[in-house]
């Protein structure tokens, strides 16, 4: 126990092996195995009820896995109480102690660890500086704004220098502008402290912005783990592609395979190259995914791989969305950046052709 409590200069690595969690008859987590590396900003991303918060609470020690092990730096911590784990949490509602001042809140963990007064004072001072709350140490926490409370919660969790910091949707209560700046702030804190951050969110943009790696979860299972680029550009399955950003799904037929490439024939008859994730063997009918920003709208020409009619044009300032009804009846979205001012040159009900940039189609696992 004293071993795991010692303060660390490096972030801890979390291993979750074969984790299952039942609440009565409801299975919240179904056989999850994850390795979170030391010093990384790792995000558990998924819709509400997907089990991400349950996983986080099992790392913190608030829930025990029904089956499986939680490892910290290779040591099994599954059965340790929350106060025996060198892991701290930033709660969704901050959970600041209302009867204590800002400084007392931040110093709480160190006080419980029995650190001397002088050490607590100096760490609290450093923490106030780290989260830009100098001079506010004596204030009651109840008088702070939402953003300030958020920073106190962060400082309180960072003060004992945990090996891993857990963040449970901590930005969801903030307004958009504050959330954006806190995203940068969190990334900075993670880099400066070198502590492993495990961040839970349902906001895909937040996840893409901050994370080194993301685990996309759904119905108690991990669907894909990878860098933001992997997750967005190389989604392994339909759920991931659909959950992260906007996507077009097209039915296609595999005509040739070589290495990790395939040629697929779309319903329009055009053949395009497509990549596929390592664990997929293409064959016969498949679904390919194409991001709206990887396609261009133009007048129909031999270069158009798809043809259709514009059903709707949505102007969004920086770019324009074209919702196109393809010949086979499916809807296809194209996002085009508004490079110059003026109209896009197309109007509703125009017949158009869609061309694709090279290498943008991806075959999905079913």
């Amino acid at each position, binding site marked *: 126990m004293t071993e795991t*409590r010692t303060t660390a200069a490096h972030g801890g690595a979390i291993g979750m092996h074969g984790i299952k969690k039942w609440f009565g008859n409801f299975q919240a987590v179904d056989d999850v195995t994850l390795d979170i590396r030391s010093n990384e900003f790792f995000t558990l991303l998924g819709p509400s009820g997907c089990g991400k918060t349950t996983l986080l609470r099992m790392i*913190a020690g*608030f829930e025990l896995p029904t089956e499986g092990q939680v490892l910290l730096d290779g040591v099994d911590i599954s059965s340790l109480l*929350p106060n025996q784990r060198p892991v*701290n949490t930033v709660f969704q509602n901050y959970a600041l*102690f209302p*009867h204590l001042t800002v400084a007392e809140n931040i110093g*709480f963990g160190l006080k*419980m660890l029995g650190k001397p007064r002088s050490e607590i004072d100096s760490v609290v001072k450093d923490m106030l500086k780290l989260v830009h709350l100098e001079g506010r140490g004596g204030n009651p926490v109840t008088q702070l704004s939402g953003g300030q409370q958020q920073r106190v919660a962060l400082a309180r969790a960072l003060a*004992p220098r945990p090996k891993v910091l857990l963040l449970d949707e901590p930005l969801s209560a903030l307004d958009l502008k504050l959330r954006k700046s806190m995203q940068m702030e969190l990334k900075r804190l993670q880099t400066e402290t070198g502590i492993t951050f495990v961040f839970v969110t349902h906001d895909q943009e937040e996840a893409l912005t901050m994370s080194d790696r993301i685990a996309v979860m759904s119905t108690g299972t991990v669907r894909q783990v990878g860098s933001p680029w992997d997750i967005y550009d190389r989604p392994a399955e339909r759920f991931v592609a659909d959950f992260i950003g906007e996507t077009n799904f097209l039915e296609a037929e595999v005509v040739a395979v070589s290495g990790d490439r395939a040629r697929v024939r779309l319903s329009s008859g055009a053949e395009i190259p497509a990549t596929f994730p390592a664990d997929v063997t293409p064959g016969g009918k498949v679904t390919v995914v194409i991001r709206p920003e990887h396609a261009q709208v133009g007048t129909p020409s031999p270069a158009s791989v798809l043809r259709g009619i514009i059903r709707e044009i949505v102007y969004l300032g920086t770019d324009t969305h074209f919702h196109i009804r393809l010949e086979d009846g499916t809807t296809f979205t194209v996002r085009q950046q508004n490079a110059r001012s003026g109209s896009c040159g197309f109007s509703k009900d125009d017949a158009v052709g869609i061309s694709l940039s090279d290498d943008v189609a991806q075959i999905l696992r079913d």
Partner: protein
Amino acid sequence: MFKSHFDIRSQPGFGLITLFTFFALYLPIAALVIYSFNGAESLSRWDGFSARWFVAAWQNAAVQDAAIRSLVIAIWAAFLATIAATMAALATTRTTPYRGLTFKYALINQPLMVPEIVTAVALLIVFSRIKVWTGYSGLGYLVVAHTAFCIPFAYLPIRARLESMDLTLERAAADLYATRWQTFRHVTLPLLRPAVIAGFMLAFVISLDDVVITEFVKSGGQDTLPTYMLGQLRRETTPEINAIATVFLALSTALVVVFFFINRKKQ
């Protein structure tokens, strides 16, 4: 502000009922207080303003004796009941609900439901047996009896506070290396303090006020103020008991006011 569909204040007779209620509640008390300053020997005949009965009560050795006994019992009973109530409230709120929990609420609140006279008779029988066996006949019996019926009064505000308390705070404390005792000591108890004080004061006033159980349980020469006053009624009654009752009223009002200000300063 919206006007609600049914505004009771606009119903016919509302003013009259309000007036009646206030008179019914406060007229007797006003009469009591006024007559405690009666100069006459009689309870009902007014004979000029005087504080003589306050002086008389203050100098009456039996009153002094009963008052001190009342205070000693009330302090002990409130103290013990508050501790028991706090523990009971923690045990019944810091747990996942299970079958039989409602039954436990009923058990704890039993003194509110069983007629006091039943408890009084039961205690009389049990305690007289114990008195015979042990030979002890001190104030302990009264303290135990008072503690028992004070527990629900202390329990209710404490449980209400615990139920409304954000459980994540205790989780946060545990996350920040607090042991269960440290969590209780540094988070739960400080947040619970106003409710504990409220519970103590309620228990104190309830104990101070009790007649029925005290009358049955007390041994000879163990009068509390209320039983002393009751005893006086059997002899000639003077405005002295008005004076004692007025002091009672002042004391309990003072307690409520003090509690109100303690609570307001916290917020």
